[in-house]
């Protein structure tokens, strides 16, 4: 048979059926839907927060939901979790210690596993403060492999919402210890204790309003 034979033409036409656009995407979507329940509902959780020492009003934060079903929680992550006292409300705090770690706060110094976390003053950091108060001092704190900024503000007449010092405690299994980045003006694990990992909604990754700002810790140099 030659190439112009009907049989060869038919062979070529029927053997090279076009593949529908996005066929592979459809298969992969269905596989994810059926076999990866951990990723069901993957999406972003958006929230408006009003930091206690912020002069700029509200900030809007985006965080991927359910990321901790597939990834481990790390020190330095800013996590979103349910307020233990009011389950309809969510908190954004930074994880400073993981299950099994010991934590202690003494004179504004944080100790994890018996080691004082090193921190450096950022001299020209543009931290804002509500009217009538001194601008908080900004430090870069290094916690294991993460480096992040914290603010030590003057508590002012409202006073701190958490006790300043915390005696050494061990974070229980399946819990983590969280502190606010505004160390002296934060309701956090100092008030309500370590939080269950099951209460984590997601990881806050960025503030997208009023200006974009990453909340992910910078990589640090200290070994885990």
């Amino acid at each position, binding site marked *: *048979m030659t190439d112009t034979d*009907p*049989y060869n*033409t*038919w*062979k070529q*036409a*029927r*053997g*090279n*059926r076009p*593949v*529908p656009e996005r*066929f*592979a995407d*459809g*298969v*992969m979507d*269905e*596989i*994810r839907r*059926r*076999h*990866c329940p951990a990723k069901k509902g993957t999406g972003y959780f958006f929230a408006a927060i009003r930091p206690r020492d912020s002069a700029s009003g509200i900030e809007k934060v985006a965080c991927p939901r359910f990321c901790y079903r597939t990834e481990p929680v790390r020190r330095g992550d800013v996590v979103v979790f349910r307020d233990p006292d009011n389950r309809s409300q969510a908190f954004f705090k930074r994880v400073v210690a993981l299950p099994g770690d010991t934590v202690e706060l003494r004179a504004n110094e944080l100790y994890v596993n018996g080691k004082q976390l090193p921190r450096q003053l950022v001299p020209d950091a543009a931290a804002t403060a509500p009217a009538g108060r001194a601008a908080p001092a900004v430090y870069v704190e290094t916690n294991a492999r993460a480096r992040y900024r914290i603010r030590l503000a003057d508590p002012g007449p409202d006073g701190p919402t958490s006790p300043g010092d915390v005696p050494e405690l061990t974070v229980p299994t399946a819990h983590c210890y969280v502190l606010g980045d505004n160390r002296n003006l934060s309701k956090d694990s100092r008030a309500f204790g370590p939080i269950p990992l099951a209460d984590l909604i997601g990881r806050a990754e960025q503030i997208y309003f009023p200006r974009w700002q990453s909340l992910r810790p910078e990589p640090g140099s200290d070994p885990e």
Partner: protein
Amino acid sequence: MRCPSHERETIDRVLAGDTEAFRALVVRYQQPVLAFVGNLLRDRHHAEDVAQDVFLLAFARLGSFDAGRAAFSTWLFTIARNRCLNALSRRSPATTAHPPEPTDPHTPLAGLIRREALDQLDRALDDLPTPQRTAIVLAELVGLDQAEVARIEGVAPGTVRSRISRAKKALTESIRRAAGATE
């Protein structure tokens, strides 16, 4: 035929939990599987559903695939063949008639003649006994070698050879008959 090492690595990654690695296998085999299923079932939408099912089933059963015994393609086409046979057995006689498939004519007259010839061959393929149909589609339209077709069909290579030969004869005969009728 043994499973190529790059495919084996992909399969190992999928089995280790990297679900997304399976996309490479889908992309590699989507065209031949659609050609196979489409030529057996003819209905385009039904064929796409069954082809998707083939890949989903392959993903779900990947743990049972033995790379030392067969190539991934052989295993995949065995699943595809079984799914098609199930679909064909469930199909009611009323749904076996299908509209002619679209072709791409160069000129109206040439296109008409070409289309008529292709439709004639489609009808002749549909009239073949199922073992001959699956064998000729796998060997001639998908382009698998006869030894692989024999493994997919679970028969001896000689049996596949004779099925393909008889199917080809029936198809060419149908063209000859159609040409004779128009003269």
